[in-house]
C-alpha cells in the first residue's frame, strides 16, 4: 500500500477506464475521488456502481459532467440525468438484479468464473444467458465481473491499509476492493496500526493499493 494525494491517484486513471465505485445511493461512496475525476475531466468511463445516486450527489456527479459512456448498475430510477443519457443512447446501460450484481463482482474478486442464480430465470434478464439445471432446478449462469480500478470508501483505514466500514456505508465496498486490478481508498479517518482490532478488519491491508492522504493545509 502506498499513501498518495488524491490528485496523484486520479491522474493514474486513464480516460475510458473501467471503474467500480462503492456506495449505495451516495452512502459509502468515495466522493472525494469522484470530485477529482470530474476536476481532471476523465471522460468515456465505464462505471460499475449499484445506482446512479442523484444529480449532484456521489456517482451522480459523473453524469452531471457527462463523463460516463457505459454503466453497469441495478437501479438508476432516482437520477433523471442518467436516465436521459441512457434514453438518448449517450451511455450504454446494463441493468442487472442487485443480488446478481454483487455476486458477479464477488466472483470476479474471488477467482470464480461465475455463479448459478435462480434470480431472473424466465424474465428479460435471462436473455442471452446460459441456463443450467442442478437437481432439476433452473439457474442462470452469471459470469464474473472485474474492473481496472475500484474506488472504495472506508470508515477507518490504518497505516497498512486495513479497512473497516460503518453502518450502511459498507454495502459494495468490500467486494469491490477484491475485484479490481488497482484499489484506491478514501477513509473518513486514517488511524495508527492496531486501532482496528483484527476481528474488526473487513478489508485486509494487502488488498489496498493506494490510500488517499488527508487534504493538506
Amino acid at each position, binding site marked *: 500500500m502506498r499513501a498518495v494525494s488524491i490528485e496523484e491517484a486520479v491522474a493514474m486513471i486513464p480516460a475510458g477506464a473501467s471503474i467500480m465505485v462503492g456506495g449505495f445511493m451516495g452512502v459509502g461512496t468515495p466522493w472525494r475521488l469522484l470530485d477529482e475525476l470530474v476536476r481532471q475531466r476523465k471522460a468515456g468511463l465505464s462505471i460499475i456502481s449499484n445506482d446512479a445516486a442523484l444529480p449532484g450527489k456521489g456517482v451522480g456527479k459523473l453524469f452531471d459532467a457527462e463523463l460516463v459512456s457505459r454503466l453497469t448498475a441495478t437501479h438508476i430510477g432516482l437520477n433523471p440525468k442518467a436516465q436521459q443519457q441512457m434514453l438518448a443512447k449517450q451511455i450504454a446501460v446494463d441493468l442487472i438484479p442487485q*443480488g446478481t450484481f454483487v455476486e458477479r463482482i464477488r466472483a470476479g474478486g474471488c477467482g470464480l468464473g461465475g455463479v448459478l442464480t435462480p434470480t431472473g430465470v424466465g424474465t428479460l434478464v435471462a436473455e442471452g444467458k446460459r441456463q443450467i439445471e442442478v437437481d432439476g432446478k433452473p439457474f442462470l449462469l452469471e459470469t464474473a465481473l472485474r474492473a481496472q480500478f475500484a474506488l472504495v470508501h472506508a470508515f477507518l483505514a490504518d497505516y497498512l491499509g486495513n479497512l473497516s466500514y460503518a453502518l450502511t456505508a459498507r454495502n459494495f465496498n468490500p467486494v469491490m476492493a477484491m475485484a479490481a486490478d488497482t484499489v484506491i481508498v478514501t477513509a473518513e479517518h486514517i488511524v495508527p496500526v492496531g486501532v482496528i482490532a483484527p476481528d474488526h478488519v473487513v478489508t485486509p491491508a494487502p488488498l489496498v493499493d493506494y490510500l488517499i492522504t488527508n487534504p493538506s493545509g
Partner: protein
Amino acid sequence: MDAQEIIARRVARELRNGDLVNLGIGIPTLVANYVPAGLSVFFQSENGLIGTGPIPEQGLEHPLLTDAGGRPISALPGASTFDSAMSFGLIRGGHVDVTVLGGLQVDAHGLLANWMIPGKMVPGMGGAMDLVSGAKRVIVAMQHAAKGKSKIVAKCTLPLTSVRPVQLVVTDMAVIGFPDGKATLLEIAPGLSVGEVMAVTDAELAVSDDIPQMKI
C-alpha cells in the same frame, strides 16, 4: 382510513414473531407503522442492515445510516450491519421470512410484474427480482386498480419480475391468495361486496360462499 393505511394494516397482520422482514419502497414501507403490539420482528434494509428503526430526531441523523432510498434512519438495539453480498445472501437464501413489495400487475397465477414499463419506466430492478425469487413469503401490497384499470390481471402484459408466484396480494379492496396456483379471493375490504370487487378485477378469482371481511 385511506387506501394505503388499509393495505399496510392488513399486511402487518401477516407478520409473525421473530420474522425477518424486508419492506419495499412506497406502500410497503408503511407496514412498519402497524406492527401489532407485542410482536417483535426484524426489519432488513437491503443496503446492509437488520434492525432498522424509525427516522431519527432532527439533528441526530447519521449520513452513513440510511434506508435503501438514501434517507436517514435509525437502528434498534441488537441491529447488525453487513455488506451487500451478505444482504442478498440473506434474501436469495430464503432467510427473509416475508418481503412486502409494490406491484404494477399480478396475474391469475400469482406472477408479479413490478419493475418495468417498456418505453416508459426503465429504472432497473434493484433488489426486486432477488426478493421475489428468494424470500420465503412474498406479499404484494398495492392499490387494487390504477386509473380505473385492474392491477389483478389474467396474464401480466408487463415484463415479469420472477417466474416464481407470490404468496399473497393485499389491496385496498381485497386479499388474494393462490392456493393450488389459482387466484382466490380470501377477504374483502369492509363495506364492499364480492360483486363490487369482482367488477374491478380483471383476473378470474376463485370465490367461496363465505368471504370474510379484511382484518385491519
